[in-house]
């Protein structure tokens, strides 16, 4: 059956193969091409943002100011965050969604292919503008990625470019999210009803709703900054009757769901990978769906836990503390379900599995420090210290980034048709894991001992842990070069079979490796579909 489908596709390819040269990429409406562009773009941004992180860590390696001025240091922390959040992590997940969702639900392409092209090509423009600010009078934005007024209004010529690039990123995300929702809701194979969808598709469906809900809020907030700066409004200026704290409420109403935008697809990825390498079905598929939905819902009512020090009424602080603590319950369900999936399985430890296990371990550490942060009186001590830096890097680096690495290794043979270099992959995992912990674990101690975040220089009692963190960061950065090596040699390995792994589930494994340019021109019949999930 699979072969028959494949043959049909091959025949088709001759008529509608990709165009040649640059036109293929500029004008493509093919979900695989667009997915590839998203992934390559996010990898480039990962290295650009990573280079900025290394500027930060080099300066912080020792107390005293060695390499950069404080102004530039602040530009680096700001740009590092904006680029990693909007340029690396989010587009990488959208790239995976583009590549995999149509193949996982048996659709021929995304529902809105021209918009798909557009939502990608906005991104290089957005980040071109953002990076150009580094060369403008007054330098790049330096007020932190949270852009709190009034400080952000002190940005130089870069200010309108910052706002416009954030608008563009939001536009791209919203279009991507609409496309994903329409695709999932309308283009599933016959008989793939909602609760039968693979977990990655589910978590992306929920994520896409979050994006549509909150990206316009961010756009509104930055537009108000723009009018405060240029058109004499006072939304956030106390002198004109405005309220600087209002910006923080609006920003975090976007910002907290944003956190889950960056982790829910990661949950989906490891929920695909752990069953494959445990040779067991995912434990509690439906409860995973309910847990992800609960997390998404709760993410809208916890935003002010980022603001326990701004002076809120007691009742407000209580509400946000309790609501935040509640998130631990569905998140716990996720972790327990992954462990129950491994339990009594027959596990093997290929690179995707290693990165997924690293994810479960280290994300859980980040989750536990998150629980500590939920406790409002203690949060008053942790807030804006390196403890917070440690916490969110634990959930974002060995969380989101590790899941992306896991996904890349897991589906790479399906994309290229060849097995990647497993030895290099394992080295990539072990070095990354060692160095990510060396970088971020000491930061917990720094924060508890009283080191604030976003400072270019620090008192000498913080010297040793900072040194460790800097060594770790350089090591982590170098480890990622192994990944580049894996990608460059991706087509040098053995040819991959259609199923690639021993027992993967899902429709994407029923098409040939490499996946032909067009897949599922006709929806898979029920039998293929059921075989795929056996």
């Amino acid at each position, binding site marked *: 059956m699979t072969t028959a489908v494949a043959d049909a596709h091959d025949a088709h390819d001759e008529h509608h193969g990709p165009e040649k040269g640059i036109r293929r990429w500029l004008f493509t409406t093919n979900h695989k091409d667009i997915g590839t562009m998203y992934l390559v773009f996010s990898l480039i941004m990962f290295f650009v943002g990573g280079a900025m992180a290394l500027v930060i860590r080099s300066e912080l390696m020792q107390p005293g100011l060695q390499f950069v001025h404080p102004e530039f240091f602040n530009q680096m922390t700001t740009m590092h965050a904006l680029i990693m959040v909007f340029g690396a992590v989010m587009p990488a997940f959208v790239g995976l969604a583009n590549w995999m969702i149509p193949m996982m639900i048996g659709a021929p392409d995304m529902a809105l292919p021209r918009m798909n092209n557009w939502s990608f090509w906005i991104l290089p423009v957005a980040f071109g503008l953002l990076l150009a600010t580094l060369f403008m009078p007054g330098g790049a934005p330096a007020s932190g990625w949270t852009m709190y007024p009034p400080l952000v209004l002190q940005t130089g010529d870069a200010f309108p470019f910052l706002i416009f690039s954030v608008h563009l990123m939001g536009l791209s995300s919203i279009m991507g999210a609409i496309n994903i929702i329409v695709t999932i809701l309308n283009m599933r194979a016959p008989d793939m009803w909602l609760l039968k969808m693979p977990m990655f598709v589910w978590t992306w469906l929920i994520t896409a709703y979050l994006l549509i809900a909150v990206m316009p809020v961010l756009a509104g907030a930055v537009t108000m900054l723009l009018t405060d700066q240029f058109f004499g409004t006072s939304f956030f200026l106390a002198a004109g009757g405005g309220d*600087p704290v209002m910006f923080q409420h609006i920003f975090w109403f976007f910002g907290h769901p944003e956190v889950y935008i960056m982790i829910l697809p990661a949950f989906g990825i490891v929920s695909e990978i752990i069953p494959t390498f445990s040779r067991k079905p995912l434990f509690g598929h439906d409860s995973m769906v309910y847990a992800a939905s609960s997390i998404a819902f709760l993410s809208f009512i916890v935003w002010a836990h980022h603001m326990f020090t*701004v002076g809120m009424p007691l009742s407000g602080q209580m509400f946000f503390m309790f609501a935040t603590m509640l998130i631990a319950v569905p998140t716990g369900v996720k972790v327990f379900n992954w462990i129950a999936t491994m339990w*009594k*399985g027959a596990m093997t430890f290929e690179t995707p599995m290693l990165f997924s296990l690293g994810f479960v371990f280290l994300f859980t550490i980040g989750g536990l420090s998150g629980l500590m942060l939920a406790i409002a009186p203690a949060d008053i001590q942790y807030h804006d210290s390196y403890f917070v830096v440690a916490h969110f890097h634990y959930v974002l680096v060995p969380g989101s980034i590790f899941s992306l690495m896991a996904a890349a290794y897991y589906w790479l043979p399906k994309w290229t048709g060849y097995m990647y270099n497993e030895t290099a992959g394992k080295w990539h995992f072990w070095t990354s894991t*060692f160095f990510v912990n060396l970088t971020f674990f000491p930061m917990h101690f720094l924060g508890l001992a009283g080191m604030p975040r*976003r400072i270019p220089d620090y008192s000498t*009692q913080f010297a040793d*842990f900072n040194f460790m963190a800097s060594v770790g960061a350089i090591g982590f950065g170098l480890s990622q070069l192994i990944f580049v090596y894996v990608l460059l040699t991706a087509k040098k390995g053995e040819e991959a079979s259609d199923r690639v792994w021993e027992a993967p589930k899902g429709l994407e494994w029923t098409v040939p490796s490499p996946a032909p340019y067009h897949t599922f021109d006709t929806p898979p019949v029920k039998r293929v579909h059921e075989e795929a999930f056996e």
Partner: protein
Amino acid sequence: MGATTVNNLMLRKLFLSLLGLGWASAASADWAINMPRGITELSQETFDLHMMVFWWCVAIGVVVFGVMIYSLLKHRKSKGAEAAQFSHSTTAEVVWTIIPVIILLIMAVPAAETMIKLEDSRDPDLTVVVTGYQWKWHYKYQDQDIDYYSTLAMPSLKARFKDSGADVFDVDNYLLDVDRPLVVPKGKKVRLLLTANDVIHSWWVPDLAIKKDAIPGMVNETWFRALETGTFRGQCAELCGKDHGYMPIVVEVVEEDAFQAWLDTQSEGSAQLAQAEN
């Protein structure tokens, strides 16, 4: 410290870091790895809360990681494990939903109690208005006609710049020292009213367990009662521009009579200054 010693120290730290054994290094005697217990009743309560949640997290971690590691060791294909095919267990799912809820309730009660006390700034003995500026603090004793700026102390200021040539390890309390500290009496309830003149700052002294944003156009309120005398240091905690890292906070807690004596010298000083200005 000569160049050779610095290099040796660097190599040694590098080596230890690579081993992940940095904490065994004797390079600096003064390393804190935990939150200070602090010197107020509430800072100690906060510390206890922090430790309680921390130990709960350790306990949860031991159980979760324990089960996971056991599974990783036992249920591997290379050990000949055969994969079971179960994918549901309502009992298990109910249990691991309810147990976390119970643990959360155990944490929530003391947290809420401390929260309520933190917000109770009634009946202060002394009120100080704290104003954040780019990049210094201003203190005004509300009923005493005393006010002054508090800025980074000269030794740190000289050493802080790139190519200053100074070894910051030779500067006492590098970046954590000011020219004029906030002076408060021991055992008295001190209320702080915080605001800012330009952008948002945040007044943080870990030993007092106080971190409160100083926001332009708004007045925030917090309080503490120091139970010990001594010098306690902190920093601005909200990014406030290029010299955000250079506006430390020093609180000097003194006995009450010493505080009165200090007040007297200060108000004389202000009176003279006022006269001179006239």
